[in-house]
């Protein structure tokens, strides 16, 4: 048996002005076929105006074990949210 078709991750932009969003994955022998297959598998109902495909093997992801190191520091920085600063009610446009 020959080698298995590589796995591609599929990203679809649903409308102009929105970002591409990950929708799933599929197998295809090359990038052109991956785009064709993505059209058939993920946009049968007008879900998109643009398709990105990326070889799954080329994606670098953070590890669940690094979650604390990566994301914990921002927990204590609530002042990064505008709601941290109470504003007097009579002050407008802030």
């Amino acid at each position: 048996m020959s080698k298995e078709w590589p796995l591609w991750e599929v990203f679809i932009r649903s409308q102009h002005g929105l970002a591409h969003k990950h929708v799933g994955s599929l197998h295809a022998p090359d990038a052109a076929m991956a785009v064709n297959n993505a059209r058939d598998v993920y946009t049968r109902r007008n879900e998109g105006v643009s398709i990105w495909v990326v070889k799954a093997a080329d994606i670098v992801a953070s590890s669940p074990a690094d979650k604390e190191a990566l994301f914990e520091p921002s927990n204590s920085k609530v002042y990064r949210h505008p709601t941290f600063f109470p504003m007097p009610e009579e002050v407008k446009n802030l």
Partner: protein
Amino acid sequence: MYAQLVETGLKEVQGRADMSAEEQAFQARIDAGIKIEPKDWMPEAYRKTLVRQMSQHAHSEIVGQLPEGNWVTRAPTLKRKSILLAKIQDEAGHGLYLYSAAETLGVSRDELLDALHAGKAKYSSIFNYPTLSWADIGAIGWLVDGAAIINQIPLCRCSYGPYARAMVRVCKEESFHARQGYDIMIKLAQGSPAQKAMAQDALNRWWWPSLMMFGPSDAESVNSAQSAQWRIKLFSNDELRQRMVDQTVPQAEFLGLTVPDPDLKWHAETGHYEFGAIDWSEFYDVLKGNGPCNRERLRTRVTAWEEGAWFREALVAHADKQTANKAA
């Protein structure tokens, strides 16, 4: 149901005392409603059970195209034919979403397909019944996809992230399937006496197999209890089956068709229909490979896979050549 009698490989439901620290933390996340993602730690039995359940679900979608494919060239109108083709294409898509989701658990697509083709992996019993008339296409959409929706909606909230997300996509598309089936039934039921008889005949043949899709009562099943604890099964087979009967009987009444169950009774005090005993020997017989179409279904899949091999290999050869050309 699309996944029936899924084995967990466990003899009893794991209690907290038997769990390692990792397993306790895992169960706590599930109890808190936090989704498990592919790279998270998970017990081996959870992973294996999910591979079985999701691949069975995927295989069902793929094999499920075959009974309907039987009527593509014989659909009564071009419009019906286009709709049926779109529905069958959706089933292929659903199979692909589910295979991809299963692959996040570390199995390859080819391994999953090999297991199906070798007869090691199961698919739903329902697809081993023949489609004898056009009304069967209506009955499948109405009853089989109707049952699938009942099973799949809760799975949108299951504990494994990729499975839950695949189910959300599937459910969005599935209600088109149920409606197009019921639409066929309405047309036939309101048609000539012969057309109405055809619709009744389809209901007669598909009613019981559709109720069997949910699987036998699992009130006592260790596998189901463990799967419930892992939140990859959210309702019992009997609960889902009752939901199916309760919602489908009034739909049959609207069509003016008779549900083929002399024991069917409405109970106003419980708000549920009581229905007759199911012949589980038929279900087990179909699972064993002795349904009307088991051999033909598997043979068709294996032939498609084997006869398509040269084409899959040619595409790989082409891709390799293009890569080499680019590098040169």
